[in-house]
């Protein structure tokens, strides 16, 4: 049993998400930074899809009743076990009654915590992922509160404690370059608008959330109107409403929408943009579809290496 003594501002239960329901308007949810989430699960011997926690900016405080292992990955944040500093990206053995505290992120936004066995919450449409706006999945469809009690599923008997090498830990860059494929409505923008989009820094805004990352920078000007006949919104689609400012749509996105989309962020860079703090800049670079496929294969390989085995991502 895990007792939450301080939940942090927005901590939710997530697994790898629920596929197949966008056609009913229900997004996949799941972790924004899939790589950090999968590695956390691997470090405690869990299947990749086991449910863990996604914390935003500030981590939770909790105590565990029984011995278990945990791993803390994602954003860089101080971790203590019984007030002793503990490592991130490593298997942590907890004794019965241990109390864990995860502080404020020094770099990055989203912190992941995996528990051996995985969290035992009911599944909704086949997934334990929390969809906050739809009050679906996770713990009663909401973020954690003080006093919540979480249970773990039975864990496999033996595991190897492991710690990632410095080279395997994903870097949290000051000004990450995010790779995008232009379209599907890139033709609705002026050449100057596209040039601004691909050559200027855009600053992350504080109102960003799991639905979308809102950015601010030089105006991406439209050539003929900012509204389209509503269509489907892919993961990473960059909507540009009339104000010319980009919104990158993430895991809790609306399934369809009526604003022009200038480009789509490659799935391999979703986790990177999801770790950009408000006030921090990003740059966008356009790649062709074939290059995007190659980058995705590279991402899967790097993840498999860090995770210690192939991934089905």
């Amino acid at each position: 049993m895990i007792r939450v003594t301080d939940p942090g501002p927005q901590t939710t239960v997530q697994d790898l998400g629920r596929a197949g329901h966008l056609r009913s308007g229900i997004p996949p949810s799941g972790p924004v930074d899939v790589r950090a989430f999968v590695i956390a699960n691997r470090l405690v011997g869990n299947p990749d899809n086991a449910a863990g926690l996604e914390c935003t900016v500030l981590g939770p405080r909790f105590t565990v009743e029984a011995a278990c292992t945990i791993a803390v990955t994602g954003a860089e944040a101080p971790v203590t076990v019984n007030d002793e500093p503990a490592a991130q990206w490593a298997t942590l053995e907890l004794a019965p009654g241990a109390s864990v505290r995860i502080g404020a992120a020094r770099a990055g936004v989203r912190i992941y915590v995996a528990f051996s066995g995985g969290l035992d919450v009911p599944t909704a449409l086949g997934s334990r992922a929390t969809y906050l706006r739809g009050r679906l999945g996770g713990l009663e469809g909401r973020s954690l509160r003080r006093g919540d009690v979480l249970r773990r599923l039975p864990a496999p008997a033996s595991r190897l404690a492991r710690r990632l090498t410095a080279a395997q830990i994903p870097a949290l860059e000051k000004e990450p370059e995010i790779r995008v494929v232009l379209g599907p409505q890139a033709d609705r923008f002026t050449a100057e608008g596209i040039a601004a989009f691909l050559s200027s820094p855009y600053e992350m805004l504080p109102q960003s959330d799991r639905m979308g990352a809102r950015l601010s920078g030089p105006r991406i000007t439209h050539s003929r109107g900012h509204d389209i006949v509503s269509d489907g919104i892919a993961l990473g689609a960059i909507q540009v409403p009339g104000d010319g400012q980009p919104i990158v749509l993430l895991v809790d996105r609306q399934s369809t929408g009526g604003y022009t989309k200038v480009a789509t962020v490659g799935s391999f860079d979703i986790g990177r943009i999801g770790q950009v703090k408000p006030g921090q800049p990003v740059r966008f670079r356009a790649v062709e579809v074939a290059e995007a496929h190659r980058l995705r294969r590279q991402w899967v390989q790097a993840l498999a290496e860090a995770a210690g085995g192939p991934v089905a991502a």
Partner: protein
Amino acid sequence: MALSVELGDDISVETNTRVRALEFLIQQKGLEGVAETVPSFRSLLVYYDPGRVGYDTLCASLGALAEQASTAVLPPARLVELPCCYDPELGLDLEAAAQRLGLTPDELIRLHSSAEYLVYFVGFTPGLPYMAGVPERIQLPRLTTPRVKVPAGSVGLGGAQFCIYSVESPGGYWLLGRTPVRLYDPGSAEPTLLRAGDRVRMRPIDRAEYDAILARVEARVYRPVIA
């Protein structure tokens, strides 16, 4: 990864039928590597696994199926009957809309509830249907100032479109009434009620029946009529 297949640039039953036909053909064929599809007015978003199917191969398969989409025969649509209470307490704009259209509220209710609507697609928020089939006589431009909060179940008109709010959200449609049926219920094993291609009819009910059905909906013992 995802591909958007565009089958037109308009909002029409013909274009949307081709979108749904393409989705149906993909399901029937069990197209390799396709993970999920999202129909909308005039396009189909196809999520795929690039580890299982190459981009060029998928484009070619989708192109071939899109050509068959105009002649494909879709399975028979469901007809869903939704009770709707047009009491002005729930249909906040009923009287204003009727006046604007030069109708009495009763005439507006009769026209609205005697039409059959087609669900183009479900989206934006969970379970929200975008529907066609609003009789021309009752088409109105959207409200100039959208409401900040529209209660779930509200039945709204905007232009040639008709929608039922599935969750409480902002909205700019004229509110004619409210259905006690939940189009989205996160606590249910099947959280959403409507699907793309469904046919929908509204059955006028009075306030007493609205309250009675609402109580059964909340107890999870109410099932709408689906033929």
